[in-house]
């Protein structure tokens, strides 16, 4: 689960991490008031969406404009720069803050990470400006290769860290944390020394790094990234941005974090699917997929592609695949108007194929599936399962195996398109 920058900063502040003074607003008037109350000569107005690249992104009015800017200017590196204003503005008065907020709130912000549709901006963060000495990079993440938490720091702040890692790996300093004893001061010192920090300042940096690590562990984060981390001209440290993601598996023990969920930032269909314990992800193709098991579901998308088709979604109905789940999955898949055919690929292991077939038949009757339906069943009691499908009176195309099913689904979708 992801949260907004302002929420991430509020959480970090609890652990003693210094962040710029500021407040969130949902109206331009409120944004102006916040700027006035901050009383700072310079303020920053920042659009709050769950995607990076906001500063370099573009504010647009319509989805068509969003798509145009995305494809012409943002989609990949090396494209010409766009001439529009982005989602982060530096302002010099409350009036300017109000004006900036007005041109951001309710509009679409399209960035490299939002995709072509952009994201509507509903909240805006107004913060005091700070006197930037230099910009650094700091992150805490899970290192899958060794099963430990790692901390990364770099003097190359404000940049794309993957690029830094590729082009100048010597600019990245990394510490791996032993969970039995936690993040040690000597490790934090080593990071600070790598960033060129000298004697009297070391303690403050060590404390800052340790606070960040404590927040990561305490809150069960999966990623905590501060980019840029600012060292001000008078030598203090401020988290100028904060990207915080949480481990979904650990949310059950963090009621306060769960409350920070912003459903507007999530795909409504994915959210609906999650309610029924289905795993659904929308894609761009026209063949709806319904599969039991995540690995097989990915493989099903791949085989559709292999036969020249394009999957409309990833959908894992789980090992069980009950009538209720299958019916819900149908509803979600068919709500996508671009779906021209549905391919159901089920390997009944513990769950018997006759039970699964019964579920599919009932669910398709309930939902009233109008597009061609291709089904491939394999596993326990498969003959009985196929018999149930055949006797259902429904117009279902049965497939002998996965490849046959994919081919038939691709043909059916092409014929219907």
């Amino acid at each position, binding site marked *: 689960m992801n949260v907004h920058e302002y929420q991430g900063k509020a959480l970090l502040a609890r652990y003693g991490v210094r962040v710029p003074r500021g407040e969130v607003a949902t109206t331009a008037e409120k944004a102006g008031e916040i700027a006035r109350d901050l009383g700072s000569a310079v303020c920053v107005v920042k659009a709050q969406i769950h995607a990076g690249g906001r500063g370099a992104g573009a504010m647009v009015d319509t989805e068509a404009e969003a798509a145009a800017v995305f494809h012409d200017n943002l989609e990949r590196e090396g494209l010409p720069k766009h001439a529009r204003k982005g989602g982060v503005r530096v302002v010099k008065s409350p009036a300017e803050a109000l004006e900036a907020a007005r041109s951001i709130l309710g509009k679409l912000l399209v960035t490299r*990470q939002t995709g072509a549709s952009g994201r509507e901006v509903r909240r805006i963060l107004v913060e005091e400006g700070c006197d930037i000495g230099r910009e650094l990079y700091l992150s805490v993440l*899970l290192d*899958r*290769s060794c*099963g*430990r*938490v790692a901390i990364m720091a770099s003097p190359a702040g404000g940049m794309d860290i*993957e690029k830094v890692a590729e082009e100048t790996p010597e600019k990245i300093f990394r510490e791996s944390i*032993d*969970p*039995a004893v936690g993040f040690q001061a000597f490790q934090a010192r080593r990071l600070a020394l790598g960033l060129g920090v000298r004697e009297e300042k070391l303690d403050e940096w060590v404390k800052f790094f340790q606070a960040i690590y404590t927040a990561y*562990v305490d809150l*069960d984060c*999966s990623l905590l990234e501060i980019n840029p981390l600012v060292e001000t001209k008078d030598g203090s440290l401020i988290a100028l941005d904060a990207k915080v993601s949480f*481990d*979904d*598996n*650990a949310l*059950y*023990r963090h009621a306060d974090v769960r409350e920070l969920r912003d459903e507007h930032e999530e795909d409504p269909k994915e959210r609906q699917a999650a309610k029924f314990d289905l*795993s659904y*992800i929308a*894609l761009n193709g026209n063949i709806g997929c319904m*599969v*039991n*098991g*995540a*690995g*097989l*579901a*990915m*493989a*099903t*998308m*791949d*085989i*559709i*592609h*292999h036969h020249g088709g394009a*999957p409309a979604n*990833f959908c*894992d109905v789980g*090992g069980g695949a009950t009538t209720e789940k299958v019916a819900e999955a149908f509803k979600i898949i068919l709500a996508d108007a671009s779906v021209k055919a549905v391919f159901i690929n089920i*390997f009944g*292991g*513990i769950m018997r194929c006759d039970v699964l077939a019964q579920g599919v038949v009932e669910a398709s009757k309930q939902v009233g599936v109008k597009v061609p339906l291709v089904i491939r069943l*394999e*596993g*326990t009691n498969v003959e009985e399962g196929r018999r149930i499908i055949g006797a259902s009176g429904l117009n279902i195309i049965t497939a002998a*195996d*996965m*490849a046959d099913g*994919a081919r038939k689904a691709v043909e059916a979708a092409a014929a219907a398109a």
Partner: protein
Amino acid sequence: MSILLSSKSRVVTQGLGATGKFHLKGCRDYGTQMVAAVRPGKGGTSWEDTPIYDTVADAVKHQGVDVSVIYVPPPGAADAIMEAAEAGIALIVCITEGIPAADMVKVQRYLEGKPSRLIGPNCPGIITPGQAKVGIMPGYIHKPGRIGVISKSGTLTYECVHQLTQLGIGQSTCIGIGGDPIIGSGFIDLLRLFNDDPDTDGVFMLGEIGGAAEVDAAAWIKANMKKPVAAFIAGKTAPAGKRMGHAGAIISGGKGTAAEKIAALEAAGLKVAPSPADIGSTLVAAMKG
């Protein structure tokens, strides 16, 4: 023989809820020695003739168990793994899906220097066809033989095994290593065992997007593996930044794509199935050299 699991293995079930009971039965019906269960506070009772103990250590003491299978729900699963390790269980198979990553970081550290091997979590388990199965896979699709299978997935493994069996190719041992970011045993750990197993002639590896385990395995295979290995990587068409069902199946920062994994495996000389329908035929081709 086979690796890790045989007809001699004696298994304790941790987590005797509905799921645990269902699969205890399934494994017992397959012929596995399901000789004990653990349910704290219920020690001294039994379920369908299976004696129940308060602790794993008690089950070891009274039943000589050397394998544990865990169905304990996520909040208590890490604790269950550590209890099994502390009791000296040689093979711990954790089926539970949804364990917090932070808990697994601790488990990993706890297991360091201990002789226990962990399989999973978030996996279907392990089976040595014709001898024993520990986990939730359908036993009958398997066939005793000489090919090892290592997989990050559940139903995709069944698909793979089914294709092999249809072609008359039996399996020595099949292991689901799990789809989480932190797992007990990875591809390399198990490839090493298959490499040394006189009754395994070749291995099929089922990987997916996310992490770099398949890329690391490719390098290890190139340097060490004496037997043919074939592979399939799921998720060629997966979009970046989205979690594809499994907690670990995510392309992040442009890393962990199927394309980069396939390239690494092919560069190491492996045959990679172009589509999931070609798993069986790709293995056949690999075995012919």
